[in-house]
């Protein structure tokens, strides 16, 4: 069976050697600098949470663990972005549910060790925590979206949701250190809402950057005809 002449000519016009992408987990390591910045930005810029009851492990240990789980989720998103390596529904459900359960676990552990109630101006604190956490996640969302788009996500919304969730977890790992209030009602509504917001933003960004790829490259239009095909570099 021979390659149709039109297809062959089209491929020959665009052809050049490429280097295969590294493994998704190795590529996820590129997000580590952003994860570190997200972890220390709020505590350094403002003040470390004065929770002596929690100790170093309760403050930094739990946050580092949460950040590493966020990084794992970003790795899962990058694996999802490779054709044929997408996660099954069950695995996806676990990737989405386990990090959320871990956030709940970290919140309850913090509350047990150092219960701090949020009494007045809850809406102001909620606004600061939500906006701060969501905004801190944005650079990681943007960078991870570029990494995902560099591959070929066949389900951009899913890949984007995973990388948004990962970035949200990394950002919240820093904000939980900054935020004085360990009250579960505050953390599980506002902080978790910021993580969910990051998940939604990640999904939308990925759909925007990776979606409709099939429409961009119709076979019957020449590449070198003065057109701007918005092609991705490889």
């Amino acid at each position, binding site marked *: 069976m021979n*390659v149709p002449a039109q297809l062959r000519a089209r491929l020959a016009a665009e*052809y*050049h050697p490429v280097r295969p992408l590294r493994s998704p987990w190795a590529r996820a390591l590129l997000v580590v600098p952003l994860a570190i910045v997200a972890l220390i930005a709020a505590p350094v810029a403002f003040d470390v949470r004065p929770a002596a009851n929690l100790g170093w492990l309760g403050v930094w240990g739990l946050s580092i663990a949460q950040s590493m789980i966020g990084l794992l989720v970003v790795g899962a998103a990058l694996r999802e*972005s490779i054709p*044929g390596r997408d996660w099954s529904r069950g695995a996806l459900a676990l990737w989405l549910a386990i990090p959320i359960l871990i956030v709940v676990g970290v919140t309850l552990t913090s509350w047990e060790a150092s219960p701090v109630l949020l009494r007045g101006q809850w809406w102001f604190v909620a606004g600061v925590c939500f906006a701060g956490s969501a905004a801190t996640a944005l650079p990681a969302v943007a960078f991870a979206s570029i990494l995902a788009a560099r591959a070929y996500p066949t389900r951009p919304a899913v890949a984007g949701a995973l990388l948004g969730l990962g970035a949200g977890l990394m950002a919240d790992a820093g904000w939980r250190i900054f935020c004085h209030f360990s009250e579960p009602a505050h953390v599980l509504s506002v902080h978790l809402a910021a993580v969910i917001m990051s998940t939604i933003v990640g999904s939308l960004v990925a759909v925007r950057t990776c979606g409709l790829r099939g429409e961009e490259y119709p*076979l019957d239009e020449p590449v070198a005809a003065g057109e701007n095909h918005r092609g991705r570099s490889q």
Partner: protein
Amino acid sequence: MADDQRPFDSQAADGRLLAQDRLRELMREYQAGRFEAFDEIYASIAPALRRYLLSQARDGAKAEDLVQDTFLQMHRARHTYDPSLPLMPWAMAIARHVWLMDRRTLSRRPWAPDDVTTMDLPVKGEAASYADRDDVRRALGKVAAPRRAAVIQHHVLGFSFKEIAERAGIAETAAKLRSSRGMGQLRALLGATEGTERTDRKRKP
């Protein structure tokens, strides 16, 4: 145990593994810069892709278009293939994506139908001098689908090139180019129709 004494299933499995290894090697060569490897990859996996796409599209011509689009997308995504893994799951995932994108594209453009036989085309009065509505419909049906869509959207439905470009996910210049080439093709086809009719009239006693 000698090869010819082994159970048939075992030999078949070995054959499949060898074929997988060969495909893997070919794809690695294609990534590395040997363009000719594509011919063998195409010959090996095109039938399986066609079967799959035919089972989805249930239209031979459509399946053939989708197969070509799948290979184009495989070419563009070749850097995402990991040579340590089998090729077919990767290729089939791209084929499935191409099929779903095609369906999505069609569902988003209900106002650019493939079937132009029932369209009410606003052919101007002077057009009757060289072709009637049926001729225009027939000719339009022969214009390549993306160009036809651009012609219909711009000249019949009145969309701007910017709107057409946004809907199709292409540059505005590409939309203009499609429409212009579609009109050129349409004129050529109508010219041919007119010529055929004149010849027919001359032949009639």
